């Protein structure tokens, strides 16, 4: 325990290298996005399904910011997905058909509601927090579901029109434009999220997740940071909802149902929290499984999903991505 043990310069390089390494793009990341782009060119690719996966991946990533990085669980995240979805829907229905600007407006609206929610849940934690997020989601669903005059109720919003992207690319029935649009938006938002979590703000989120009391004693503005991350997570979820509405020209109350909130949570847990990519991996697994199992045994696929969840929680609690990381780390050390 002496004061100077090794030259400060050697360790300084190590320290800088550490953070530089965190910021650097790994080969897996590049391969991941290249693969997603490559899917577009695969003949007879099921682009509508892949588009869904990308959208769910974005949606789950938004929850990851909240849960994985800041440690705030939510049973009602679909509320923001739905707000974005309906906002984009109303814009498309009432003449604002340009998709990108529509998306931005929808995401902003969801973000504002997210900011308000963040303010509301400041002092709440544990079961109470789960119940508040669930309750707010159910309230919103109830309103949307019941006000069929305004929202079309269970039948959904009708008459949504979306203009071609950039005036050139029409949303076709094969899902080609939809896939690229979803992928492009998702990639841009992913870049933002990645930069955010690798910034000092991202570190502060991790610190607050690990030990809020210590963060307070370092002078951290916990309240402000919670509302900020909530707003961002909500905006991203809203963007995902808007993309879904725009690519399908349809939105219905299922977009903000408890079922959807539960699904996105399950997807994120399967893929793994705190890695940003967990949401995408989880979406792949979940949607592929659901597709495949539902075909095999339409009534009993629930059993296998349930079993998967139980097994994951019991043996791979951290999810796929972190478990793979650990595995790769162990293999490397051999």
């Amino acid at each position: 325990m002496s004061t100077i043990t090794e030259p400060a310069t050697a360790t300084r390089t190590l320290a800088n290298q550490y953070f530089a390494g965190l910021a650097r793009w790994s080969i897996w990341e590049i391969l991941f996005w290249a693969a997603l782009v490559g899917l577009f060119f695969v003949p007879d690719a099921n682009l509508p399904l892949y588009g869904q996966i990308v959208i769910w991946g974005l949606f789950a990533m938004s929850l990851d910011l909240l849960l994985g990085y800041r440690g705030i669980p939510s049973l009602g995240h679909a509320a923001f997905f739905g707000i974005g979805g309906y906002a984009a829907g109303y814009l498309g229905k009432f003449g604002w058909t340009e998709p990108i600007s529509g998306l931005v407006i929808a995401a902003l609206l969801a973000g504002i509601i997210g900011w308000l929610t963040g303010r509301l849940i400041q002092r709440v934690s544990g079961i109470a927090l789960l119940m508040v997020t669930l309750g707010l989601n159910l309230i919103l669903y109830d309103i949307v579901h019941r006000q069929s005059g305004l929202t079309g109720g269970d039948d959904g919003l009708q008459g949504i029109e979306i203009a071609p992207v950039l005036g050139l690319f029409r949303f076709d029935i094969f899902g080609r434009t939809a896939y690229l649009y979803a992928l492009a938006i998702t990639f841009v938002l992913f870049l933002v999220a990645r930069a955010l979590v690798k910034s000092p703000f991202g570190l502060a989120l991790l610190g607050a997740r690990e030990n809020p009391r210590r963060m307070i004693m370092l002078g951290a503005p916990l309240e402000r940071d919670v509302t900020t991350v909530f707003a961002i997570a909500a905006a991203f979820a809203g963007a995902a909802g808007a993309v879904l509405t725009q690519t399908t020209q349809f939105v219905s109350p299922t977009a903000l149902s408890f079922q959807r909130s539960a699904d996105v949570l399950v997807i994120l847990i399967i893929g793994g929290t705190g890695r940003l990519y967990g949401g995408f991996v989880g979406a792949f697994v979940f949607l592929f499984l659901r597709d495949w199992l539902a075909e095999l045994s339409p009534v009993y696929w629930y059993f296998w999903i349930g079993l998967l969840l139980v097994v994951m929680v019991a043996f791979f609690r951290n999810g796929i991505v972190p478990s793979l990381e650990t595995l790769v780390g162990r293999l490397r050390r051999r």
Partner: protein
Amino acid sequence: MATIATVLFNGVAYGMLLFIMSVGLSVTMGMMNFVNLAHASFSMLGGYVLVVVTQQLGLPFLVSLPLAFIIAGLVSIILERTVFRYFYGTDDLTQVLLTLGLIFMSIAIVTYFWGGTYQQISVPPWFTGQQDVFGLTLERYRMFLVAVGAVLAVVMIFGLERTRFGACVRACVDNARVARACGLNTELVFAVTFAIGGGLAGLAGALSANLLGIDPNFPLRYLVYLLIVVSVGGMGTITGTLVAALLLGVADVAGKYYAPEIGGFVIYTITVLVMLWRPHGLMGRRA
């Protein structure tokens, strides 16, 4: 044209049902800090026991009730010993996901054996129809529910306060670690409490079949109500669960009757407000 009193009574009947269904969850959550969403599946199980006993075995309705209690109790104790106890101490989210997975599996299992539609339920003739009571026309089955609920509530509160086992339960809810240090066999208390709680859920499921219907989606439909009752009432309290269940039952029925456009809205709003004001529930401990 139902009067306010009838609506209130129906609300109380529904509340009693919710009470019986939720009280086991409240106590186990307060005692082991274990969020067992599969509790809703125990209820469903009780409903299907009723179906098998009355429809397939042809036994009387009243026989099915204790059978539902026993079978659901057995299943819950088996699950507790083989699965749940390895997850005591893990965080809430982990337990939510685990038990959610179990709910999914239970839905599929039930669908496999009995199909996906609502089951036929029949109750003895003297439980059907209405009865004039003090000038009010009340449904007989609902009166039965209120009676059963009231008796169970009294028995449980008395049992908790006056029996030795009740004292053990209270000790474990208060501080299981210290209780164990004092020589209490907490494992046994946990197991028995789980069994009784699960059994009650099964009983509630059997009782509710006539009123709410039994189908594979039962757990997911009523899970939210269970969570609301338990969190609003306060975990680990019987009186808290009773109060919250009655409040919820009345609010739900009155809401659906007097303001159908608002309906579920009211309950969810109450839940959010209570959680913000009193995160441990109306009568929860550690407030």
